[in-house]
């Protein structure tokens, strides 16, 4: 693990990281727990798979400490599919991240779905050659993670719930925050950075671009083609589907339908066509019936 030496190398490395995120746009990233599911995901047209030992809805049910997956299981998935393989580490657990980097995973998700390893700090992601994605609930959180070196953001949503409401809330929070930035004068930017707890230079860059400086994806509660289309129309550039596929009645056709729904997210006639013959969606749990302690989105800051 050689650390990049100078600014130019760091910039080039960051461009490679964001470059891979660009390639994943307009696609679906699917949670899988074994090689067989990974193959189903690839055959359905997933742009990447997220390898983890238990899908979030099972993590919810089973409780206990959720950690980085077994490297042996991740390697088996890497050997099975040709699309990028992602894996999760606990918030702040940079040693787990070092292991995944050495394993050659293509993207690391520093994820609130696992039990946090650090109550104060997230990983300093610029130190790594492998790109990171992180979850956010609002603009300030997104800009903090980008400041630490995240190459892709996603909404936190509420993983494993099958309820899309939190993903919608978080996506709207981020876009509303960006709209507000664009109404500010230069002399108001520092106060806004203070208010959001966001790094100033990333905030100014976001204001100039009118969007996050890295791709912005949706995650946490997507269960149907309609959910995927909703998130795309709200500004997501790609959709993560965690429990929504392999906790449903008939995963392969649902996986395929969600891939098609992302491509044709603005074409209701096509959405009808892809949804016609699907089995039951995952049952799920309404987020507003959950105890605060059950929610994952509050992990990290």
């Amino acid at each position, binding site marked *: 693990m050689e650390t990049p030496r100078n600014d130019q190398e760091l910039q080039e490395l960051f461009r490679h990281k964001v470059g891979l995120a660009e*390639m994943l746009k307009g*696609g679906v990233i699917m949670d899988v727990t074994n090689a067989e599911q990974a193959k189903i995901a690839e055959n359905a*047209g997933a*742009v990447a798979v997220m390898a983890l030992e238990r899908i979030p809805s099972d993590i919810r049910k089973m409780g206990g400490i959720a950690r980085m997956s077994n490297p042996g299981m991740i390697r088996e998935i890497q050997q099975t599919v040709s699309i990028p393989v992602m894996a999760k580490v606990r918030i702040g657990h940079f040693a787990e991240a070092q292991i995944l980097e050495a394993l050659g995973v293509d993207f690391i998700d520093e994820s609130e779905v696992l039990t946090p390893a650090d109550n104060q700090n997230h990983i300093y992601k610029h130190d790594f050659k492998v790109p990171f994605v992180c979850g956010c609930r609002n603009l300030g959180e997104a800009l903090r993670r980008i400041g630490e070196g995240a190459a892709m953001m996603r909404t936190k949503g509420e993983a494993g719930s099958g309820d899309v409401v939190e993903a919608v809330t978080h996506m709207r929070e981020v876009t509303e925050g960006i709209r507000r930035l664009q109404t500010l004068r230069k002399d108001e930017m520092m106060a806004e950075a203070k208010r959001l707890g966001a790094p100033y230079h990333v905030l100014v860059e976001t204001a100039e671009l009118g969007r996050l400086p890295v791709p912005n994806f949706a995650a946490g509660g997507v269960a149907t083609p309609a959910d995927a289309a909703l998130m795309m129309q709200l500004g997501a550039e790609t959709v993560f589907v965690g429990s929504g596929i392999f906790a449903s009645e008939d995963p392969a056709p649902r996986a395929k339908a969600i*891939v098609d729904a992302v491509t044709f997210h603005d074409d209701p006639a096509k959405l009808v066509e892809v949804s016609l013959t699907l089995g039951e969606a995952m049952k799920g749990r309404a987020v507003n019936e959950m105890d605060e302690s059950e929610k994952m989105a509050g992990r990290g800051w």
Partner: protein
Amino acid sequence: MTAPVGLLALQGDFEKHRQAFAALGRSTVRVRRPAELAAICGLVIPGGESTTLSRLIDRIGLREPLREFAAAHPVMGTCAGLIMLAAKMDGEDPTDFGVRPLGLLDCTVQRNGYGRQIDSFTAPVRTDGMLGKGEDFSAVFIRAPLIVEVGPLVEVVATHEGRPVAVRSGGLLGMTFHPELTSDLRIHQAFLDLV
């Protein structure tokens, strides 16, 4: 009024190509359905995941329309786009297809030929056949494919360390790297010269 350039918008970084053409003052339209090919003068197949592109092309019924379009119009493919243009895949189990290329450009490619994401890199490539003689282009390679074999009628138009990284045959231009990820617009301009 010249017809716009089409961007195959099934999945991938077609937005980056739109920005490059916009910077050159050229309008683009997204193409997702066979009928949309009628209104464009040339097509870009962007970077993305070739397994995804391959499946969507077949599910939507775009395979034959794309082949017919390419017989009469310029098409540029970058990275996954080159893979889709290629004739053959190297090193894949034929019983378990990953990608079914369109078979338009007579070359054989090997997917992820340089390794995984941590092996992605930027390097200058010689672009003698594509840009001016002796001109270099700073090329971004992301999980890039390798061109392992080139047919007799296909011209190698860029090389990296002596290996082909861009090839051309008539109006078909394919490269293993991503000109759309840099602000250097010379390759997009060279494609517009073909259109």
